[in-house]
């Protein structure tokens, strides 16, 4: 469904990604693991059209999308869900969700998706009228994911969904992601090194110093010595 070929990305003079090639299949959850600051977020942002200097090729559903800006990719069905959430603080939860359906493709499904999303996140239903800036960390994370769902995208890039959350909330978030996946969305997510990821992800990549150092199924990852070391090292 989505494929990058020898992707390189730069921030100014900094060469962040080196020849990264990954792929995500239809209805699959792929996870990118790796230490902090080694380019995981950059990879997601590059795919989603949020990085200006990119070399290499990205294709989505067989179409070349390299260099396509984020606001257009949303319409194509690729949505980015940010780690720092990128919500609209002075708007209500409901308005945030409605804006999630801004793109042309999502607009006709706004009502249907809204109902679906609120069912999925009962907590947001309760806080519908509240300003986004008043939400707790976990709620904001949920709102970000919910807003992403509103876009009706088939392919969701989720940046560190569990970052800074308490363990019970983490489980809740992962369950929701699993549920979304079951409903037919392909998901590429980035995490640092959470053991639970093995249960969620169909395929796991390891990104270190801007390079892919491991690729395999969850099972293979579990058997990999190098990964184990990192998992245990946490």
């Amino acid at each position, binding site marked *: 469904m989505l494929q990058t070929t020898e992707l390189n990305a730069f921030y100014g003079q900094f060469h962040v990604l080196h020849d990264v090639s990954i792929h995500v299949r239809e209805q699959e959850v792929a996870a990118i693991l790796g230490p902090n600051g080694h380019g995981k977020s950059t990879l997601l942002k590059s795919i989603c059209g949020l990085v200006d200097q990119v070399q290499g090729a990205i294709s989505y559903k067989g179409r070349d999308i390299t260099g396509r800006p984020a606001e257009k990719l*949303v319409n194509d069905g690729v*949505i980015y869900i940010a780690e720092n959430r990128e919500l609209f603080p*002075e708007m209500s939860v409901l*308005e945030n969700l409605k804006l999630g359906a801004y793109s042309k493709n*999502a607009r006709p499904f706004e009502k249907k998706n809204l109902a679906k999303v609120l069912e999925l996140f009962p907590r947001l239903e309760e806080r519908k009228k509240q300003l986004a800036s008043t939400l707790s960390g976990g709620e904001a994370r949920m709102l970000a994911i919910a807003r992403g769902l509103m876009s009706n995208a088939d392919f969701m890039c989720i940046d560190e969904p569990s970052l800074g959350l308490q363990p019970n909330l983490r489980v809740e978030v992962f369950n929701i992601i699993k549920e979304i996946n079951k409903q037919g969305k392909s998901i590429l997510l980035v995490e640092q090194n959470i053991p639970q990821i093995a249960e969620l992800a169909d395929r796991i990549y390891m990104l270190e110093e801007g390079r892919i150092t491991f690729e395999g199924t969850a099972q293979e990852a579990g058997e990999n010595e190098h990964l184990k070391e990192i998992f245990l090292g946490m």
Partner: protein
Amino acid sequence: MLIEYADVFISGLTNGSVYALMAVGLTLVYGVSKAFNFAYGSFYSLGGYLAWVLLAGIGIWGGYISVFIIALPLLMAFGYVTEKLIVAPLRSRSDWEIKVMMITLGLALFMDNFYQVAFGSRMKSLPPIVDGVWDLGDIVISYQDIVILVLSVSGILAFRWILNNTRIGMAVRAVAQNPEGARIVGIPKDRVFAATFAISTVMVGAGGVLLAQKYFVSPTGGWDILVKSWVITAFGGMGSIQGGLYAAFILGMLEAFVGYWFGMTWVLFALFAVLLATLAVRPQGLMGKWG
């Protein structure tokens, strides 16, 4: 005594409503795109001249209603094209904020002198929208002031409604609050920038149409408007429409009462004194936010 204060109060109210209409556009553009438009006063004059051309030049049928129907879309188109042509290309440059100020200053110089060359340096007067006064015995209010008050307040309310209830309005607020977040949900940022510029041009241009019949139009008449709008937006907090509204009425009142108690020469001092005092306590203005 009370009667006089009521009189001054009404004067302050009229000032305030005019300032509010003027300042909202400036604060909007700054809030959304961080661009400061120095040609804002010239856009005001543009509205006035458009009205003059339509009414006195062409002698259009239907009076002010036709003027608004024709002028507003023209102003909107003008604002949109201006943003696309001269502001948007600068956004990716270093020092772009200074460069936007410079280029709009150049545009202001160009426009003001274009008016002078095309229409002459003399002021142009327009027929009043309505004539007559409302005589309440001790207090007299001209219908003209009432019309200006009502139209500018409803203009602002309409604008707020658009901002809160329409798709484009939500997009504008989204970009103002979080440009990156707006991109992520698929809002075309550049188009929103241009759209806000267009909306602000409409607001100030409509102000020009509305005020030309009271204050006349002249080539350099926009500077006063720019300065006052600037003070108001800074006082209220740049980018905060609510703050701008409060600031407009507070400063309108301040102007009227300082003028009454101390004399007109002190108005400017008082405006800046209040502004500086406010900024010393709240560097972001009454209701502004950093960022």
